[in-house]
């Protein structure tokens, strides 16, 4: 019974990032929370980047792809746009995971900046040249800035979750 309970809690906690990613993609609630009058946050980028970098077994690439498709349909973007962006971000995170040995908040934060820039550049290219949808590019820019600024705070929260998961696993 104790083992069952332990495994159950472990599974539930392990699913939190995945549930959160799907929830955010289905509701876009993160982009609707307007901070400082007109700025919003892209929590999905942080989730994809952090968990691919720290523990890729928590959110698989298949889930990232599917979450991107859901996000596109809900927001109204051409299907595949967010998937391409999320997978690009995951790819960069996977590359950094291969190249680095010791992970710290500073190193994560520093590499998160170019990763978001590259991802949003791809998003810009896809929406500008391959679709008819007009996008508020200044809002996209502010969204990227806020996402980068908020990364350390979310990183701390996720680190607690990681430690807790490791504790439960042990």
């Amino acid at each position, binding site marked *: 019974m104790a083992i069952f309970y332990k495994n159950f809690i472990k599974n539930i906690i392990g699913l939190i990032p995945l549930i959160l990613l*799907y*929830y955010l993609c*289905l*509701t*876009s*609630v993160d*982009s*609707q929370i307007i901070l400082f009058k007109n700025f*919003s946050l892209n929590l999905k980028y942080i989730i994809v980047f952090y968990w691919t970098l720290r523990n*890729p*077994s928590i959110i*698989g*690439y*298949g889930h*990232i*792809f599917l979450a*991107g*498709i*859901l996000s596109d*349909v*809900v*927001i*109204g*973007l*051409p*299907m*595949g*746009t967010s*998937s*391409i962006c999320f*997978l*690009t971000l*995951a*790819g960069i995170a*996977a*590359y950094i*995971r*291969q*190249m680095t040995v010791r992970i710290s908040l500073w190193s994560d934060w520093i590499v998160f900046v170019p990763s978001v820039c590259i991802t949003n550049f791809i998003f810009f290219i*896809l929406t500008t040249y*391959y*679709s008819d*949808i*007009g*996008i*508020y590019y200044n*809002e*996209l820019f502010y*969204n990227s800035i806020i996402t980068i600024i908020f990364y350390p705070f979310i990183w701390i929260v996720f680190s607690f979750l990681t430690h807790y998961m490791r504790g439960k696993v042990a």
Partner: protein
Amino acid sequence: MKESASRDDFGIAIRSALLQKGTKQKFSLLALLIISIIFFSLEKLNTKPINLVRAFLHDGIYVGSMLANYPNKFFSSSLDVVSKHFYVYTENVKLQEELAKYKSLANQFKYLKVENKILKTSLDDALDVYYNTVTAKIILDENSPYLKSLIINKGKNKKILKGMPVLGGSSLIGKIVESNFFSSRVLLLNDLNSKIPVIIEPSGHHAILSGKGTEKPVLQFLPKNNSIADGNIVYTSGKDGILSAGIDLGKISISSEGDVEVDLFIDPNQLNYANVVIGVTEN
């Protein structure tokens, strides 16, 4: 020697990141990226089988999204109820003042209605226009940084098609841009992609109402020496041949910077239901 070793490391890291499935990964990143690009390319195709699959997929995802949004809606409506309780007294005083104002306006309206009927009869142009509408529930309110749109719970099953105007009450709030079997997407007037030909009364100037992502859309292509003033009413002109003419949508509000903005009559975020105009009957 050192350079070639670092190049090897780079190659290995790239290969590992893109091709290796790793722990618990069922798909490689590269394969999923290719699938995503295929999905993206298919969006451009407009064939019947693809549209059919797309419509089913959208319907299903909208239902999932609606279910996921229930906690949000419950939380925001509870918060709204609590905050409204604090303003009941001041709101009541304000409403009483407004009621007195509207009572006097109602009398004026009765007189004008009779006068209008007499004038119309004399002009032999007594045309009454009725809109055939379908009322639909708003299941999702997408106020994202990218697009300002609503999802309604009716689609092709109720003869709702792309381009049809959508009313909130009797005022225009947007038009249908995507129609699935059981759901449709409404592009709101304040969205960047929304451009609607309008006419301003009483001056009769024509312009294009253009969304810019903020609460108030702006008027573009106005004549240089126009006589537009605060409070003038904006109607659809029907010049695009898609939207019906004469649907009111807001009143003019000239900003401090001199931009001619339109204060919309209806705030779409406050709506629970919308009326889609599926046809017009003229008697």
